[in-house]
């Protein structure tokens, strides 16, 4: 079992979270949408697996490289 950290590529805020902890995700599937520079930044699963933890809440500010969620696969 490997755990993959999904990190934010941008500084911004969490707009919408589309998945819940425990959900199965396919590679490339949308997990959440961030907002940065008035743009929607989709966060997609880099690997297939189970969403083990979501580390942020909607409207929360995020920094570059901040861990957003963990995927176990």
């Amino acid at each position, binding site marked *: 079992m490997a755990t993959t950290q999904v990190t934010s*590529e*941008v500084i911004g805020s969490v707009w919408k979270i589309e998945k819940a902890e425990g959900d199965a995700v396919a590679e490339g599937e949308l997990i959440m949408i961030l907002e*940065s*520079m*008035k*743009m929607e*930044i989709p966060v997609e699963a880099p690997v297939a697996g189970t969403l083990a933890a979501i580390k942020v809440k909607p409207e929360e500010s995020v920094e570059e490289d901040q861990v957003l969620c963990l995927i176990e696969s």
Partner: protein
Amino acid sequence: MPDRKLEKGGGFWAAQIDELEQRRGFAADMGGPDNIARQHKAGRLTVRERIERITDAGSFREVGTLAGTGDYDEALKLKGVTPSTYVAGTARIDGRPVAIGGEDFTIRGGTSFGAQRRKGGQGGYIEDLAHHYKMPLVNLIDGAGGSVTSAKRRGFVTFPGVDGFERSVELLGEVPVASAVLGTAAGGPAGRAILSHFSVMVDGTSQIFAAGPPVVKRSLGQTISKEELGGPAVAVTKAGSIHNVAETEHDALAQIRRFLSFMPQNVWELPPRLPADDPVDRREEGLLDIVPEQRTRPYDMKKLVELVVDKDLSFEIRPTYGRAIITMLARLGGRPVGIVANNPKIYGGAMDADAARKQIHFMELCDTFHIPLVFLVDVPGFMVGLKAEQDGTLREGMRAVYMAAQLKVPTLTMVIRKCYGMAGMATCNKNDIDLKLAWPSGEWGSLPVEGGVAAAFRREIEAAEDPKAREKELEAELRAYASPFRTAEALAVEEIIDPRETRPILCDYIALAEDRLRIGLGPRAKAGVAP
């Protein structure tokens, strides 16, 4: 003894010819089988293998083959020669002449050797050759620079710059210079790699830094591995010191060949045109709906670029650094072009300090070698926020504007979506025809409506019963003026096009620009003090 020499069939000079062969043999042996095996075990090729791989078969003509340190017996008879730590010569790459050289790591780790005349690295014979014969220079870097042991051998320490970078600097305005970092580079060789138009390093087997872990330990007390200090994660992606990463040495050498395929031999020539296999009038249906209807959604700019340019011929420079900008050498109708495209996936394409540095380098590269620039624009402005200000985004961004204002090369500006503010100004060339083409999705201004409304109508919004609703109202009101067609009425953009016409129109203008390019050949004059 003429008779003996005649018997050997080599004429009067047979002994000398034999000695020449013997001395060439010493050079070919490099640092000996053990050191060569060690080099291979580390996953690296020897400098001679590298030269053989990157150049056309049989085209390498060595110069300075016999340079080295001779070992003689009491009767002054030659016992052996430790070759100099640099191998250099001329060769052909894809049929075109280059000067090429590299350190031989199998001899004293490629440290400089201290002859009458340097072969290469910092200036040296090979760089003189590239300068006088106006041909590209390829550096195969694998050495750690000066060694303190040289002082003992020499009897004194040299002043910095005795073997200077004057020629290396001069070459940057004359001929293409490409460097591969193929081992651990520190000091002079590391500096040499930076003084290049294109540089590449190999993931896992090469590192580059001003000074390596032992010096860091001694100076700062920090313990750090050479990979952590100067592997691609730092040197390429974070610092942008080196442009590209290669998976293997073979890949690194292939990237240099690829880079050179777009370059003229020197600044007095046009870049090489290839036969255009991809039709110049290809209308790409996929371009029609590539930009999402919602202006807040990103899209794949790299895919957009690939749909427009000649198929399978593009080469991205610095894919991992300053990712808000995509810089790519490509071809349109077989003619080299430099593509600068904003990447809406990273900060909506906003220009941060790294993106600005990347754009500046690429604009200078294309301007120097007469490669027309095509901007595919989707830039909301400079990046904002505390980190961006701390990073010096404003100064770096204005440096991009300054550099764009000095471009001499033909430049086409294609607005895909947003073109705002000062970052937008860095996508146009006012010294050229200043042709601004736009897709119907284009929008522009001094700043995007959203942020601008909040700032300009602050009092009115605050006084409103429902401030949020008033802000939205004002935005909608102003957005009505933002139609690209209204700007086209005023000829403030020259043409609005169907996205599917992008390739035919760009190919046509690039072909038209050829005569203009021809009369602008030669070195670029430097002007002013960059901000």
